[in-house]
């Protein structure tokens, strides 16, 4: 790649990440289906990861990618657990409606 500078102005990258993040947030806030919420969460995670990688690229060091790997791990763990919950939820309620889960006990 070009060593003299970044491909694009850094603000544009950040703006893109912010937009992606907000779209994901909107998804989390509006969807009732647990699966869609999960996907929106993934969008938000990716926005965060993008910022890390961008920052790493700006400074030309590996830290950004290391943090990206951590986010990747986080996403893997999160999805594994969340999908387990999805399966359980569907088994018990025959629906993925997150609002049906507002009953608390204990």
């Amino acid at each position, binding site marked *: 790649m070009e060593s003299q500078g970044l491909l694009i102005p850094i603000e544009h990258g950040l703006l893109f990440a912010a937009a992606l993040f907000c779209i994901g*947030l909107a998804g*989390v*806030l*509006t969807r*009732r289906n647990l699966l869609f*919420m999960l996907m929106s969460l993934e969008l938000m995670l990716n926005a965060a990861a993008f910022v890390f990688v961008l920052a790493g690229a700006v400074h030309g060091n590996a830290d950004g990618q290391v943090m990206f790997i951590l986010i990747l791990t986080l996403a893997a763990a999160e999805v594994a657990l969340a999908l387990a919950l999805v399966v359980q939820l569907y088994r018990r309620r025959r629906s993925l409606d*997150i*609002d049906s*889960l*507002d*009953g*608390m006990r204990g």
Partner: protein
Amino acid sequence: MTAWLGWIPALPLFSSLVLLLVGGRLGQRLVTLLGVGSVLGSALLSGLLIADFLAEGAAVTTRQLPWLSSMGLEVAFGLYFDGLSAVMLGVITGVGLLIHLYSAAYMAGDEGYARFFGYLNLFVGAMLLLVLADDFLLLYLGWEGVGLCSFLLIGFWYREPANGYAARKAFVVTRVGDIALAVALLIMIQQFGTLHIQTVIERAQLQWLGSDWSFWVALLLLGGAVGKSAQLPLQTWLPDAMAGPTPVSALIHAATMVTAGVYLIARTQGIFLLAPRIMELVALVGALTLFLAACSALVQHDLKRVLAYSTISQIGYMFFALGAGAFSAAIFHLMTHAFFKALLFLAAGQVILSLHHEQDLRRMGGLLRRLPFSALCFAIGCAALAALPLTSGFYSKDAILLQAYGLHGGSLAWWLALAGAAVTALYSLRLFLKLFFGEAVTEPSPDMRPTLVVPLALLCLLALFGALIPQPLGAVFAPLAATEVPAAVHGAILIMPWLGLVTGVLLWRYGRGFRQRWSDSALARSWRAGWGFDALYDGLLVQPLLLLARLNRKDLADRPVQFVAWLSARGHAWLSVTQNGRLRRYAAGIALGAVLVLTVVTL
């Protein structure tokens, strides 16, 4: 050999630690192995040590491990072993071992089996620490440990509220005595700057000759002893302590706990001898207690309460002997009493078990044919309790009365003790007759497991021939000057038990109507209630305290605290609205928070 001394209390303590921490996960067999095995180890070690001591005869002190050091006060972990300790050691480990063996069968299948043995071991360990302590603080540790264990074991079946109440009562009442003891210790620190027992006694004999300190310290020590040993006026907890499992009662009455007070006075006799008035008080307390408790024992309906009052009464004899200066006789009686009282309790446990946990004497009777072995045990135990000739109790009680007369002559206390002997015989006979003669009311299920029989048989032998066991007390107590006792006095001492027995037989045979009337009389009712001490304390102390507590409930000082509680409750109610379980609301909350923070940053 003395290097092994530390292991004697350490074994049961360690075992109790294991049992209380992980006992629930061990099997019953392993628990038994650990619980009984540790006491067996202690008993074997004690046996070896005592044999050693009998051959060499010198008191030994173990290495002192520094414990705490503060403002000139140095306290160390150290053990002291002399003739008195040897006797106590033998009694505690020997009788304790038999009770443990018995418990293994008695408690089998109980859900708290491991917990029970954990407490039992802790009890024995604490008592061993108490009698071996070289230092008053270590002694106090054992002292409090014993108190704690009695609390735990009396309330062992904690699901029954009454048991919990009895346990609390025992704890609180003995605490009164413990505070007296603690004050005595504080005075010792203030006076001598040390708590090392031998040093304290030596210095006391040098410094306190003729001063008031010895009076007060001895009084306070007596207070502690009275609380632990259930003497007047702190005797009320012991009858209620019957709420625990029967082996616990046996342990409390025979091997541990109640003998602690006797031991304490015997151990600190050097201080008591400096205060003759307190010595008289000790004798008087003992004599009064023994007589009053014997009377109470005469009218109880509960099998175990009879034994409880008899214990109070017998400890009273020991106090009487201590007060009279017949220390070795007191310790002698302590030992024989341990044998026959353990026998009586374990046999009573056997009877109670056979009768499906029936403890009321009025619902027993005619068990002679059905439970012959228990009858034999009771016969021997009651005979020893009544001090019939050729039993161990005969020799020890005889020694007490004789030596006390030799030292003091016929004081009021002595006459009370003499009369007590007759009453003792009377209630022993009543107990035996009520149990084994008369009409059968409840049908027993014979249940004689070998683990139950073996300890009982051994205790029978000890109750009969225990008086032959030598007591190496010569070096501890100054030998008594040989005095002449009139033959008439000696005769009276010998006659008294028989007097009680004959009266008892006559009443049993011909006095049915009289017994009926007597049982309902006001005097008998008051005796049955322990001379009304419970009611007295209730009216004098408990109710006023409760009244004060009730008055203080709406205290002004509580208001700020209550306001905080009210505030947090309201706040909780208010905040819990946000915890509605709607995941998206939470997410929205987080986003809103982010927006707000960013607004602050932006502006």
